[in-house]
């Protein structure tokens, strides 16, 4: 399957300062790709180069098989770009804003009306479509902001911090909607300050810092990069004391303590892969009635790799 987005060797320098250095990744159809990085890491510069707002010093961007530099119009027509700010006319209604973007993307007059209704339904704002945008809540504005990028049915959706300043209900509705689009085969590039959103949505994540990608992979691969030490909480029924002594001997387990009458905490490397060994070790001594593997999260990985938290 050909990738929806292929970018390679993207670099951009301003005077002496390097904003983006040798950035490259691919996104397949139906794949959600997260771009994580602290402020000023080069996320927005990278996105600006991907959507054709900024000319890279080096590197290529190919969208749906079309080279952005060679055929900018054709390539841009395949991208739905949702900027970080709410770029909509505040004095026009939601419907009028969508109509504007539909026309801007050259939707045929006849198709435009129906498509605007579809998108209004998709973002759940059909009932407020004729109110002026400046009467909308932050979440509603965000939903129209995303809707405006969907009118022309893009192959690649680029969301730059789409949930900033959004109430939990709108956030859920946005994430549900985006998930459906990805399930329907759209490729997604997502940046966010909210680690849990990226963890929930994205199949693969790149961590960008000082203009370069420092790590890339599935959530799990990234966490393993840090040499993830897991915490395993076991609830046992039976001879807990003997079981604890045996568990000390399991390869990979670095620590085992009894936390209450029927529970044991283990600290282990690659915890989830040890579970079969752990359960067979206590077999016949005690019955495992509950188990919880607490892995280090992406936030910890991010902190480890960039030396900063996402929300500075």
């Amino acid at each position, binding site marked *: 399957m050909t990738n929806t987005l292929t970018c390679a060797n993207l670099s951009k320098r301003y005077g002496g300062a390097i904003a983006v250095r040798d950035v490259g990744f691919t996104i397949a159809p139906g794949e959600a790709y997260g771009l994580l990085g602290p402020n000023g890491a080069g996320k927005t510069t990278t996105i600006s180069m991907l959507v054709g707002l900024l000319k890279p010093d080096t590197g290529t961007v190919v969208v749906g098989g079309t080279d952005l530099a060679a055929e900018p119009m054709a390539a841009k027509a395949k991208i739905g*770009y949702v900027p970080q700010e709410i770029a*909509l006319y505040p004095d026009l209604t939601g419907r009028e804003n969508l109509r504007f973007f539909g026309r801007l993307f050259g939707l045929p007059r006849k198709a435009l009306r129906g498509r605007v209704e579809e998108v209004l339904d998709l973002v759940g704002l059909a009932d407020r479509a004729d109110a002026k945008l400046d009467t909308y809540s932050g979440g509603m504005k965000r939903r129209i902001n995303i809707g405006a990028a969907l009118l022309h049915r893009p192959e690649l959706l680029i969301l730059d911090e789409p949930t900033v300043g959004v109430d939990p209900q709108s956030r859920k509705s946005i994430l549900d909607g985006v998930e459906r689009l990805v399930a329907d085969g759209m490729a997604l590039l997502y940046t966010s300050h909210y680690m849990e959103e990226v963890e929930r949505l994205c199949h693969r994540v790149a961590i960008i810092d000082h203009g370069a990608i420092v790590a890339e992979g599935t959530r799990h691969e990234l966490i393993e990069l840090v040499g993830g030490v897991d915490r395993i909480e076991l609830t046992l029924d039976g001879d807990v004391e003997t079981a604890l002594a045996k568990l000390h001997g399991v390869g990979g387990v670095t620590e085992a303590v009894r936390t209450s009458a029927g529970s044991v905490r283990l600290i282990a490397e690659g915890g989830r892969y040890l579970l079969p060994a752990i359960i067979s070790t206590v077999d016949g001594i005690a019955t495992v009635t509950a188990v919880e593997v607490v892995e280090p999260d992406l936030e910890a990985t991010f902190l480890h790799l960039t030396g900063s938290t996402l929300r500075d």
Partner: protein
Amino acid sequence: MRPHPVWALVAANLRRHSRDRVGLFFIVVMPFVSIIFVGMALGGGTAASRLPVGVVAQDFDPVAAAVLRELRAHPDLEITAVAGKAELRAGVRAGALAAGVVIPPGSTKFELVMTQSNGSGMAARSAVDVAVGKVAAVIEATRAATSAGATPAEAAALVRKAEAASADVDVVNSSTASGTPRGFAYTAPANLLLFTFINSMAVAAALAESRRIGMLQRAFAAPVRRGAVLFGEALSRFIVAAAQAVLIMVVSSLLFGVSWGQPLGVATVVGVFALVSTGAAILMGSLVRSSAQPSAIGPPLGIVLGMLGGCLWPSEAAGDTLNAIGRLFPHLWGMDALLTLSRPGTGLGDVLLDVAVLAVMAAVLLSLSLVLFSRRTRIL
């Protein structure tokens, strides 16, 4: 059918302007308030606004009687008899009289009392000149007839006959005598330029807003050429400027009977002036930091340029220094062209210099502002 992206921008921008009630008030109502008030102050249109002229004269003096008869017959003058010279001077100084005439008994040397040249004083003076000239011609003709051997009665009859034959010519002459037309014929073009420019400055607010909220960057990310986005933004502002001008022209000619002159000439002058306004609007929209600034800076700037260009008072009242400064700005050229065109028998050929100067100003402003605007909307 695929709509052109330029129209997407134009349609959205015009819809935004139509939602701006304060802006609409300034476009639809304010120009006419200004045209009516200033027009009436400068003696516009109707009978009530004839120019008041005071006269000090003895009725028994035949020359004085003849001049008075002519002055009273003049359609633009309201003649008031005043007892003495001092009273007349006071009236002119206070502005109750546009001008005054003192006719000493038995003399043909009249004294004209008026303040430093202003619109109505100049107009009154030219009307008085016409009346006096007519009487002088009658006296001269009568003297010539008498010296050629006619009796006074015969001479009077001959002169009356000649006078009747030349009356039409006299009327035509007198109506073109004054330099600047008075009343609505002056305030309508003046306010057309004033408000076309001021309201263009005000719509620059919407442009600054588009820039601020990232609307333009987003449009540049769409499959639309950069030039098309800039053209769409410029065209939106040009349409507002042109609509303002057309509205003033239509309403002023229907309600106040203003005759604008040769359509081709007027369309050309108004068209290039609207382009100048568009350029100024884009420049303003590119330079300001917030969308509140254009509506704060625009009107004062527009009014000052209007003052320099003779849109608030006739330029002959302004003096050479002000007019020399005014030549640097578009209003004076536009005013000159529109007033020239309002005289019968003139056309585009008579205002080519004005049009050329305005066209150069438009070209410079538009290219400068579009380059700047394009640069300001580029991501660094």
